[in-house]
């Protein structure tokens, strides 16, 4: 996954980047939620993290399509979604070699305590509830990214 430093002579901006490979590595966070408002809230909350970009998906199928299109470094996943439940998405990601190591933060509406156990058992790394605290979400995502 590491970045190959560029050996060529380069101009200011590019040089700066190759000197600091850690800063260059932009983490791609996939935000999956069927509510566009909720997606915006999550993406804005993550805006405080450095070197992070977000992509979004409104359904489980779309989320899996995003995995096919570009590397994803972490998923923030809602559970209750049309046509493919978040639990199915976790199951899919965890059962395939190529994606099994992607950290998953489940972000779901408070209320179903059984789902916390199920989600963690299925392989979610963290389980947070809505309404969420933007600072806490950013902290959790940030620490998971640093750990990988």
């Amino acid at each position: 996954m590491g970045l190959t430093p560029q050996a060529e002579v380069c101009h200011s901006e590019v040089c700066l980047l190759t000197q600091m490979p850690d800063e260059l590595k932009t983490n791609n966070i996939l935000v999956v939620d069927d509510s566009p408002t909720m997606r915006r809230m999550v993406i804005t909350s993550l805006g405080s993290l450095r070197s992070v970009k977000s992509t979004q998906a409104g359904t489980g199928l779309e989320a899996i399509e995003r995995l096919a299109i570009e590397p994803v470094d972490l998923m923030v996943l809602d559970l209750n979604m049309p046509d493919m439940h978040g639990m199915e998405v976790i199951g899919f990601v965890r059962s395939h070699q190529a994606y099994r190591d992607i950290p998953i933060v489940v972000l779901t509406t408070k209320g179903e305590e059984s789902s916390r156990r199920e989600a963690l058992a299925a392989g979610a790394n963290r389980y947070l509830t809505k309404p969420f605290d933007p600072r806490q979400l950013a902290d959790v995502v940030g620490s998971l990214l640093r750990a990988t």
Partner: protein
Amino acid sequence: MDTPNPDNRGEFFDQFLDDYYAECDEHLFSIRRSLVALEDEVDTRTVDRTVLDNLFRSFHTVKGISGMVGLGAAEQLAHHLESYLRELREGTVVLSESGVEVLSAGVSLLEGVINARRNDQPIPSIDEIIERLKAISSDSAPSNIKTSTTSEPETSESDATAARWLVEFTPTAELAERGVNVNSVRSRLQEIGHLIQAKPVVRGAGEIAFEFIIATNADKTDLEADGLTFKPAPVETARRVKDTQPVSTIVPASVVRVDLDRLDELMRIIGELVISRTRLEDQVAELKRETPAAVWRSLHETSSIMGRQLRNLRDSVMRVRMVQLGEIFERMTFVVRDLARESGKKIIVELSGGATEIDKFLVERMMDPLMHLVRNAVSHGLETVAEREAQGKRSEGLLSLSAMTAGEMIVIKIADDGRGIDRNLVLERASARGLSHGNSEFDDAALLELICTPGFSTREEADRESGRGVGMDVVKKAAVELGGRISLATKIGEGTSFTIELPLTLAIAEALIVSVNDQRFAVPQSAVREVLEVESASTKALENNEIISYRGKVLPLLRLARVFEMNYQRADSFHVLVIGEEANAVGLAVDRIIGQREIVVRAIKDPLAQSKGIAGATELGDQRVVLILDTTALRQLAATSKH
């Protein structure tokens, strides 16, 4: 960066309030639609699982986002509605008629709570509804309704004979770039057949693909598309899948929500571009004499191409602003259902032309007035079942909502087959209120004029249905302010119909530029039927009016110079713009026709500058203001001056 501090949660989430309201509106709309379906199903004694699923999900989402923006009352209410739906889905309670009623009431209150927050009003109490929801959730008494919550994925009648195909789609970045993705593929398949399954699979080295099973009678070639491979589906797979995982038919639309203000801004910038282009065109024209022909021609050509491109740009932006009236109509049917239930009337709503598109801005302005007309039709127009039967009418009243485009106008008609408007009653009421009408001939137009007078109401007290701060005067005013008009046709015992005509869009229009006494005016081209050149000698005077003969008939002339109290010298000949239809046609007399232009319409907001006969103002590129004529008002002016 002016990102609000995430430490301050309230402030942080306030920036999403507009998104929140917009999304709630969408969910409330879809909830209403599901409730209508549910009501119909209670009658047929079965409940469709997908309707329950959709309702559940909408309540769930509203609950989630309400919690985020700190609207606790909406969060709680949505939570209890969601819980009730969960029990219905799980089959622990059965849906009863009273259940549907509580759901309806809960949804109305949810809407009320959200709107109260939006309008900074006190949040209504939710306690009573929550109690009712709780009561009904624990209500295990046997219901007379057999609730079969088993999912019955709608199998179209042709499904049995349809061929089943296994369609595989492999997404790639290139395809996504071109707009081909799992959603677009799925919508396409849903269009050509019945989608039975959609699931992701992983091939060998971790390549992701999607497998769809579709039943369709479509030709094999219809399945061929970018990134798709297909083969006949193994029958048993299809069976098994069908039994175990019904696929929701919700299509997540790839829709971007845009604030109308931003589109207005875009429109304004395009308006400025149009003005600059016009200026450029004039300057190019001036260069003609001093420039070599070949150079001038290519300059002129570039300017023309730019004009065409600008028109395309304008049309594209306008198309973005257009919304279908179908959704508005559907909202109206919700209101009609509620009113019908309250009043015990039976009403059939007939919709047509729902695909007609109209500028979003116009819809927003006309929403309340149109709603008022619908409420009026239900509460005043349509009779009760007993009244109707006594008159030998069908027991269900008919309310028809229709829309169509006619030229540059859109025509919306709201018609009922109810009792009609009683002229005598209206006249009595009018004289009781000290309102009078000058016309002895009391036709539908005069009747409309009277009921649209501020302060007029045919009911002793504005009742709940129609008294929501909007009166007929407001309806008429809204239509006229938007450059439209309203008309009425009514017959005792047979019904009433209101017709509202609105311009398709605002802002930019084709116009004829004319001059009168060296003053220029713009006349919207859509209003002009014909342009004539007239010899002064051929006009005749008739009862203080000038007339000319036109197509074998008499056409009254309205001299703009006189209307606007300007001096004018009689010339040997002048031009006449024919406006209006048939008997209402009037000829506007002007000195010269300068040309045809695309103009940017700006409303005149200052009441001191407003004047009858002027619809707005525009600029033609030379930075001088040109007034736009209001041909409807001018025609009325001509009509009144006849008497």
